[in-house]
């Protein structure tokens, strides 16, 4: 079975409003085990053994990130949960927050113990304001039950900015500023929030932590592929009969996810990882779900044969141009130029020169942009040029 409930094991099982239902499902057992039976180093080691990699898209090894912050000398350290999923087509963290906020709190508290942080933050996107009461109630219940002694959690809400899902922009936003990406180094594990050592983990990453601590890193590392351990939660939407959230064993295939589970038919292409993600055509559908191939943060948008590739790229470029924070020139200007060129193609007035310009632009943006937004903005263009060149050629009128 490609489906496996590790992250989502409590979703639909517990009452997210009531901590006692969570406690009945082994809730906070992992936190107790970590605090009572393990040193912070042992917790970090267990996470390293598990092979868990970040679920926000970049796939950085979680244990190594935590170790970096642990080993950075400072009086104050912070752990942050990134609940600012804004990638086009992603809603898995919404589903998790709606159904099992307690596991997230437990994961963040374990992170705090491992890193040596007394303060945790959950950065919740403004679009999810309707989840704030549920989340704060869960934190309050955990606090009152004594699970947050020596460690507290503050929820900070965003104010509507896609780029704040980028870790350095997110920290700027928590500090009350414009959500603009920072120059790195220094990395957050050395100088993050308020210039103190900080770890930032995606909601889904932290959801894995209690499972790993309770069952062992060795148990976790048996799932998945060589370099992609465990499961991944996907948000599937677009031209599918059954849109929704699916948790898959890594190493399963896109076919199993989008055709067998979400019931897609007549697929033309799949956009994986949203606006900054990748595009694969139907004939690559047997590719495994893994970091070795293509994974993303879990946004999966399916397009059927009736869809126009140029339209998809044009709209994606518009999104990126609107959401670029504007701090670095390659991203600010590059995304605008992408829009201008794709607008010409959508009118059927593209040129060979335009394609060359976009190829140049792609390389410049990838090499010189400050953060993932600009660095990955070209994927949608370059992937479609690779797999759907005819769709561009049909819109070329000049040289």
């Amino acid at each position: 079975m490609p489906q496996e409930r590790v992250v989502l094991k409590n979703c639909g099982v517990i009452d997210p409003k009531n901590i006692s239902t969570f406690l009945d499902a082994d809730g906070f057992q992992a936190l107790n085990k970590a605090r009572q039976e393990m040193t912070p180093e042992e917790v970090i080691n267990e996470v390293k053994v598990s092979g868990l990699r970040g679920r926000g898209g970049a796939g950085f090894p979680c244990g190594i990130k935590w170790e970096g912050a642990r080993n950075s000398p400072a009086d104050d350290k912070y752990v942050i949960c990134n609940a600012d999923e804004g990638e086009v087509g992603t809603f898995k963290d919404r589903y998790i927050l709606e159904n099992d906020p307690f596991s997230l709190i437990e994961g963040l508290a374990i992170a705090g113990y491992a890193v040596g942080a007394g303060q945790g933050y959950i950065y919740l996107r403004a679009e999810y304001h309707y989840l704030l009461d549920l989340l704060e109630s869960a934190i309050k219940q955990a606090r009152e039950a004594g699970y947050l002694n020596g460690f507290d959690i503050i929820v900070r809400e965003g104010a509507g900015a896609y780029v704040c899902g980028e870790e350095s922009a997110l920290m700027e936003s928590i500090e009350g500023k414009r959500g603009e990406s920072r120059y790195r180094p220094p990395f957050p594990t050395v100088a993050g929030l308020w210039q103190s050592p900080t770890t930032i983990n995606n909601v889904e990453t932290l959801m894995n932590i209690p499972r790993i601590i309770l069952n062992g890193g060795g148990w976790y590392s048996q799932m998945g592929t060589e370099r992609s351990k465990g499961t991944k939660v996907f948000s599937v939407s677009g031209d599918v009969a059954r849109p929704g959230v699916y948790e898959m064993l890594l190493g399963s295939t896109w076919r199993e996810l989008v055709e067998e589970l979400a019931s897609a038919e007549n697929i033309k292409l799949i956009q994986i990882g949203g606006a900054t993600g990748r595009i694969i055509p139907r004939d690559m559908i047997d590719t495994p779900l893994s970091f070795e191939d293509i994974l993303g943060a879990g946004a999966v948008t399916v397009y059927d044969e009736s869809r126009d590739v140029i339209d998809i790229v044009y709209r994606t470029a518009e999104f990126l141009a609107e959401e670029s924070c504007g701090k670095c020139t390659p991203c600010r200007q590059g995304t605008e130029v992408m829009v201008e060129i794709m607008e010409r193609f959508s009118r059927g007035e593209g040129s060979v020169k335009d394609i060359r310009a976009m190829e140049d632009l792609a390389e410049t943006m990838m090499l010189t942009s400050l953060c993932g937004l600009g660095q990955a903005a070209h994927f949608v263009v370059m992937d479609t040029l690779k797999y759907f060149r005819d769709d561009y050629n049909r819109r070329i009128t000049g040289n």
Partner: protein
Amino acid sequence: MMSKKLTSPEKAPQDLLGSLKDAQIRYGHLPHEFMTELAESLKVPVSDVYGVASFYSFLSIKPLGRNVIRICKSLPCYLKNCQVIIDTVEKEIGIKPGQTTPDGRFSFELTNCIGLCDKAPAMLINNDPHVDLTPGKITQILKSYK
């Protein structure tokens, strides 16, 4: 309206975004007088305040209606024909995206992905999600916002 001090004195620069969000809720937008006073109390340049105020899409420096409609226009909602919903709302309240009704009841905006793609097309009115929209549902939904 602005004669009283609008901000408390003990604020620090890190409270900038939070103060703007509070003001957005209180006044429905961020009046110039407020931003000037906030800059003074935080001891930061007015340009910093304006910079944050104009950065985030849920903050507005021009007056908004009592209720803000945000229809998602990103690809998953576009695939589910959000344009029909946009057209229906336009017809229903008589304004285009970016505008506010003369009676101040509604502001109308298009927004990027709001994470409701499994129930597209979707929109937020103020903080409330409305999903699986059809033109037939719009009148009833709008009726509940006075």
